[in-house]
């Protein structure tokens, strides 16, 4: 796989001093402040939806952008975790934190199982194996009794965070979700910028060379896959909590495609790209519901236009612009 341009742009931005540690701190500080006040300006459920999908796409980007692996089955992790969390909260009555943790844990284990087989192949074969497994998960979701089949799992109780904060209050729920997102995002950010992340980058850049330097590339890919699956699961569990339902759409291959789309649109291999892509796609799906089935067409058109006009993704292009007009 050739190196995605967003990667080159964000590296150049660091090198040229467009991104500096100080600017980075200011930027993330502003984001946190924005995240804290935003629910008073924008409909919180919409924001929470964006946060869930942003986490999902960022987890996906860890594989696509930083390891060079295109998974086409990531909905399996999102959906499975959602079902597990939903069922545990509704039918078992677990506390919400445990429900979310359990969903994440199951997605992590599932990631291990699927990843262990998928990483033996690369390129299109890897994508097809992940898709194949995701289709099996979809089949299970249709067949198993506890998922509610076509109806999905409805009426998931939100319970109380830490045993006393009632999460049916949209603001309380929002801050709970925001905290989860921040945590998941921090894990991804750290992973990218860790010794492990540097090995991943070398694998993406030149797998044979990484191997010849003594790195067991398959084991590194597997760990990346498991982290990515686990965090996709965290996004799915959180989403189940926010929407109070999980349906077959969460495990459908459309969702696996959507996360590819969000990541490419925002800029793969950039830290912020997937979140920007998620914001855009969720906003379109949300505000264009009046167009019915045409939403898919509109989103598709925006995607085609976006990728044609911004080859590097939105964030990649922004960094590229900043490179030519330094500030």
């Amino acid at each position, binding site marked *: 796989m050739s190196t995605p341009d967003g990667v080159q742009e964000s590296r150049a931005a660091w090198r040229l001093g467009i991104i500096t540690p100080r600017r980075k701190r200011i930027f993330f500080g502003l984001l946190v402040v924005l995240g804290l006040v935003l629910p008073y300006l924008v409909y919180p459920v919409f924001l929470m939806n964006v946060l869930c999908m942003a986490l999902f796409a960022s987890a996906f980007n860890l594989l696509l952008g930083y390891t060079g692996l295109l998974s086409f089955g990531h909905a399996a992790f999102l959906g499975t975790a959602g079902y597990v969390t939903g069922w545990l909260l509704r039918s078992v009555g677990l506390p919400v934190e445990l429900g979310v943790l359990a969903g994440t844990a199951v997605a992590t284990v599932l990631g291990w199982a699927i990843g262990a087989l998928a990483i033996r192949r690369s390129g299109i074969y890897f994508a097809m194996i992940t898709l194949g497994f995701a289709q099996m998960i979809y089949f299970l979701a249709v067949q198993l009794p506890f998922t509610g089949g076509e109806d999905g799992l409805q009426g998931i109780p939100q319970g109380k965070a830490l045993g006393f904060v009632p999460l049916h209050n949209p603001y309380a729920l929002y801050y709970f979700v925001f905290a989860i997102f921040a945590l998941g995002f921090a894990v991804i950010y*750290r992973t990218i910028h860790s*010794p492990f992340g540097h090995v991943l980058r070398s694998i993406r850049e030149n797998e044979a060379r*990484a191997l010849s330097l003594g790195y067991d590339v398959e084991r590194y890919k597997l760990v990346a896959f498991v*982290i990515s699956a686990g965090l996709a699961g965290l996004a799915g569990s959180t989403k189940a909590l926010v929407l109070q339902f999980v349906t077959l759409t969460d495990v459908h291959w459309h969702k696996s495609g959507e996360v590819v789309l969000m990541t490419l649109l925002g800029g793969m291999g950039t830290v912020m790209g997937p979140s920007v892509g998620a914001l855009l796609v969720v906003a379109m799906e949300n505000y264009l519901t009046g167009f019915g089935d045409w939403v898919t067409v509109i989103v598709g058109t925006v995607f085609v236009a976006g990728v044609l006009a911004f080859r590097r993704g939105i964030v990649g292009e922004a960094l590229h612009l900043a490179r030519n007009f330094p500030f």
Partner: protein
Amino acid sequence: MTAPTATGDGLILETRHLTKDFRGFVAVSDVSLRVRRGTIHALIGPNGAGKTTVFNLLTKFLPPSSGAILYKGEDITHERPAEVARKGMIRSFQVSAVFPNLTVLENVRVALQRRLGTSFHFWKSDHTLQVLHGRALELLEAVDLAGHRDTVAVELPYGRKRALEIATTLALDPEMLLLDEPTQGMGHEDVGRVVELIRRVAADRTVLMVEHNLSVVADLCHTITVLQRGSILAEGPYAEVSRNPQVLEAYIGVAE
């Protein structure tokens, strides 16, 4: 230099009847190679002779169809490639193998990083890698690349990329280096630099190299193995091999 001895002592690498069959096409046929510790050993032969395939077999990038590979007396025929690398046998590639979008410093650092034992630590900051910068710069110094530490590898001219590749290989302090056409595509000046570099690093290491440039081979290598259509045609010191009529016919015919 004397010809390789028949005893096991002094050998760092040995292959026994190594054969590679690509669906009926025998690219490497019954190759028994003996590389003595501390020598520079050349593998030469016309294009398509199977030299790169031999490298791929030795480093386990390809499984052999039959035969055995012994490294430091140990049978590594069924080892995994990363494991072979960790045992100290590091290869380079015929086409330059840098990490294109990493900086020059980062290229070398990736190789150094493994020894910290933190390469799976996804929870640690990459600031912990800075302890490697001193050593990385030393290695870059040795190939005159220290001044380019922050250049992205893809932007280096070809000859400099190959130098970076050698520095990266040396970062692992390998006991044995396999270099696949290290001077290919280089200008005269770069060739001289690389030859000197190989001579220097070979002082306390073993080098097995594929090389087309016969003057480099004559100048640098103790032993030469000539491969033709997958089989060994001749083996010995340059003076001897270069007089072999079969070699003259097969090799010079192509070289002209």
